[in-house]
């Protein structure tokens, strides 16, 4: 097992059957090194909460390959062939959750709100088995909060107080995941003594431990560009 900061940070925090929430959208803003550390630990029977499950060989796709995941709570998994195969074979339990409902379930979990009502999913299979209530003549579904045993996030910059700042659209699910963990570990590209308080996205109270990334590899799922001659025309 590689001896790196991510591995050491998770060493005593992993156990079989636990629930791990993971930040990122597609491959953007995923905590790659922490996911690799989970893979290397060999922990199994995991419930993983994440908007997506990576792609084959990258991100959470690694945990599927090594057969460490038994349940997935996600909104979209279309980019992962191995996932599709394991799901159709019945090896993987999947709870599809609408993306906005998933974000709010994580937010609620971090905010001490056990459940909330939403219009999303009314009249669909998502509503099966869930309490329904009518407010002002409109029907809403009750959705439950998610509190994770462990939350893993990726941030651009962290400080020694646990404050985090994300970059561009790599913020996505990370602040919500950070808040919903009983224990939260953040990997950061840069560590500073203290972030400017005005620039903090996730206050340090949510973060148990910060580790500095050892590589700077980021993956792009769909590389789309426009030709140079279009400059000025857009």
């Amino acid at each position, binding site marked *: 097992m590689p001896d790196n900061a991510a591995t050491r940070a998770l060493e005593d925090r992993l156990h079989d059957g636990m629930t791990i929430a993971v930040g990122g959208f*597609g*491959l953007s803003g995923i905590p790659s090194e922490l996911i690799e550390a989970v893979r290397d630990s060999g922990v199994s029977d995991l419930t993983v909460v994440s908007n997506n499950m990576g792609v084959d060989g990258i991100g959470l796709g690694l945990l599927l390959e090594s057969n460490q995941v038994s349940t997935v709570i996600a909104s979209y998994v279309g980019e992962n062939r191995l996932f599709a195969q394991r799901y159709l074979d019945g090896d993987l339990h999947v709870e599809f959750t609408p993306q906005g409902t998933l974000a709010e379930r994580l937010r609620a979990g971090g905010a001490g709100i056990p459940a909330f009502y939403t219009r999303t999913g009314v009249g669909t299979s998502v509503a099966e088995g869930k309490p329904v209530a009518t407010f002002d003549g409109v029907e809403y579904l009750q959705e439950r909060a998610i509190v994770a045993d462990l939350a893993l996030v990726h941030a651009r910059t962290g400080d020694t107080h646990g404050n985090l700042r994300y970059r561009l659209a790599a913020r996505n699910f990370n602040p919500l995941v950070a808040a919903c963990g009983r224990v939260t570990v953040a990997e950061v590209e840069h560590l500073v003594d203290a972030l400017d308080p005005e620039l903090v996205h996730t206050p340090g109270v949510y973060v148990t431990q910060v580790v500095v990334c050892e590589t700077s590899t980021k993956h792009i799922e769909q590389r789309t560009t426009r030709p140079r001659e279009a400059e000025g025309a857009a």
Partner: protein
Amino acid sequence: MSWTRHEMAALAARELSDGDYVNLGIGIPTLVANYVDPAIAVTLQSENGILGLGPFPFEGEEDADLVNAGKQTVTVLPGASFFDSAESFAMIRGGKIDLAILGALQVSARGDLANWAVPGALVKGMGGAMDLVAGTRRIVVVTDHVAKDGSPKIVTETTLPLTGTRVVDRIITDRAVLDVTPDGLVLVELAPGETPEAVQEVTDAPLLRSPGIA
């Protein structure tokens, strides 16, 4: 003669008004951005946490931290903002987004939409589609009129898993434009060479005709 994908996108672009906040789905809806009237200002939302989407980046300027909801590399325009996923869906659920343009597997005469799963085949998940149809003020669907096997996609009753009930306002296909009304589906525009009878032939739900359609 039917409309091409790009002609369908151009038709959908007419739905946008000056000042609108708009979410474009994956596929043909993404192409709509190329046909927005330059005389109007429209702000594009991407549900992973961007308002103010710009065009694709120049080659060499792609950034893994800057992607749209289809995971494509993008840019942002002056006045753009970034936010987390809960904030993104708060503005969707809260009714702040004026229009969403989405794809479809089936649409019913009542405006029920199915666009996320085919049981027994690959089930990919609904992503943000259920939240978008529940919260956005106007939903326009852009889709081929019939499925690849020739079966109607515009039906009296949907058979596929639903994304939302009574949510679609307008359907733009390669053969016609249809409005969902309390009386049923109304044919409002035909592709060149199409007749109401020919469109009805490939539509499971009964079609009414707007006054402009012969």
